[in-house]
């Protein structure tokens, strides 16, 4: 009997609430299909399945919040084959110690929710409509959707609210049942960063990098390119960091259960600030094997999805090294805090024109300060310095990245 488990949702997300099931019992599923959306303290996330099979039973209903590792559905092999074990995510090296993920006492299997009334797929609901529904006290499950593919949109909710007698009037000052997203996100980030500061003996290094060759190369390339293909110096810095990390295994991996496990590939986490507050750090998988153009395209895609929805659980679980680029915010230097269980964080400040000694002459160059926060349990300043110097070396020949 295969079980589809609540996947790891990133180091600071220990539980998730099922928002939508996109499959129903009897549906065939294939490797890579998105089968559910899950709400965490930080974002709504698409959850994929990584095996083929047939959904036998949904074990957790919409609206239920369960810890990472909880069985969500039973999956049988296609046809009459014996059921297979299904993993919720590729064997993720990330484990979250606080979470009883290792051996969750399986909660008593709850009866699956009744099959949805439509074509086997639950109606989708837009995030806005869900919020409005919550505000108006309307159950989204009972609303007929008129949006794309029968999804429930705001107008449907408002229509339903107008015609449905309001449930028991809520006492005005009733405390919210759950903290709002902003508070929950702050709490989650705070908890993870506290753990980082408590457990990880950080050391910090900084290196000023002359970017005039990078900038000249980027400018020349962009002249001939349409907007969607233009590069930014940040893309070159990311690519160089990924390449350097591939050669510095003590910067790229996870410290779990008292031991360091270097990662097989470089899955570069990128810190993306959300305008409403907070941040997400999805991973660009195998970033060291991508060209600068490919990396830039993936970066734009992941930034877009971090802000509008549609990040996948596998992306949030995967980072092996995180980069934070605060250059757009105009600061010069980032003193990074490592995301456990990772062991290093690279920070970039603003690219700024600064006086620069070139041999015995003084020049003005575009310069960025790269910083490294790394874990003394795994490496020393000497190793960290070599890593930063390699990033510097790589950005001097951007055309080779």
């Amino acid at each position, binding site marked *: 009997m295969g079980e589809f488990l609540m996947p790891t949702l990133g180091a600071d997300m220990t539980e998730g609430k099922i928002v939508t099931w996109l499959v129903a019992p009897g549906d065939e599923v294939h490797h890579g299909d998105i089968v559910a959306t899950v709400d965490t303290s930080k974002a709504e996330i698409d959850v994929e399945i990584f095996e083929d099979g047939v959904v036998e039973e949904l074990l957790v209903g919409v609206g239920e919040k369960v810890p990472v590792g909880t069985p969500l559905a039973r999956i049988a092999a296609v046809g009459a084959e014996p059921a297979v074990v299904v993993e919720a995510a590729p064997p993720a090296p990330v484990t979250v110690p606080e979470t009883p993920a290792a051996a969750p006492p399986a909660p008593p299997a709850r009866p699956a929710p009744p099959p949805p009334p439509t074509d086997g797929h639950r109606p989708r609901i837009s995030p806005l409509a869900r919020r409005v529904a919550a505000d108006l006290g309307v159950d989204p499950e009972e609303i007929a959707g008129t949006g794309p593919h029968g999804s429930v949109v705001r107008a449907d909710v408002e229509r339903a609210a107008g015609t449905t007698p309001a449930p028991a009037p809520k006492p005005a000052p009733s405390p919210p049942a759950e903290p709002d997203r902003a508070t929950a996100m702050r709490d989650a980030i705070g908890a993870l960063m506290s753990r980082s500061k408590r457990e990880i003996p950080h050391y910090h290094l900084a290196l000023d990098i002359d970017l005039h060759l990078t900038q000249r190369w980027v400018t020349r390339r*962009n002249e001939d390119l349409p*907007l*969607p293909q233009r590069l930014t110096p940040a893309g070159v810095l990311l690519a160089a960091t990924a390449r350097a990390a591939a050669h510095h295994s003590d910067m790229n991996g996870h410290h779990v259960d008292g031991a360091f496990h270097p990662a097989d590939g470089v899955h570069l986490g990128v810190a993306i600030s959300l305008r409403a507050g907070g941040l997400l750090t999805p991973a660009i998988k195998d970033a060291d094997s991508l060209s600068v153009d490919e990396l830039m395209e993936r970066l*734009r895609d992941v930034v877009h999805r971090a802000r509008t929805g549609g990040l996948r659980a596998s992306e949030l679980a995967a980072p092996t090294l995180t980069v934070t680029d605060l250059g*757009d915010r105009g600061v010069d230097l980032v003193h990074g805090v490592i995301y456990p269980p990772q062991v290093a964080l690279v920070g970039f400040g603003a690219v700024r024109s600064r006086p620069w000694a070139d041999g015995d002459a003084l020049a003005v160059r575009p310069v960025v300060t790269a910083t490294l926060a790394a874990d003394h349990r795994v490496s020393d300043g000497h190793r960290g310095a070599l890593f930063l110097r390699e990033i510097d070396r790589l950005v001097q020949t951007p055309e080779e990245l």
Partner: protein
Amino acid sequence: MSDDLRTLIVDALVEVAPEIDPADVRDDEPVQEQFDLDSMDFLAFLEGVAARTGVEIPERAYRDVETIAGCVTYVAAARSA
């Protein structure tokens, strides 16, 4: 200033940052600072402008289009050129 063009350009901005109320947009203040957009958002904004107006803004002109007013002027000039 062309009001139609301004509407198209503000539309492109709101597409990138849906939380913006078009009524709040100040035309002479750089949009990145006004609305906390990063360089990735700014590129997406310029893509939206190109899609709506047919004018691709080259990288060397980024300085000229950092405000809504500058963007309207640039696009109008490029169209009549």
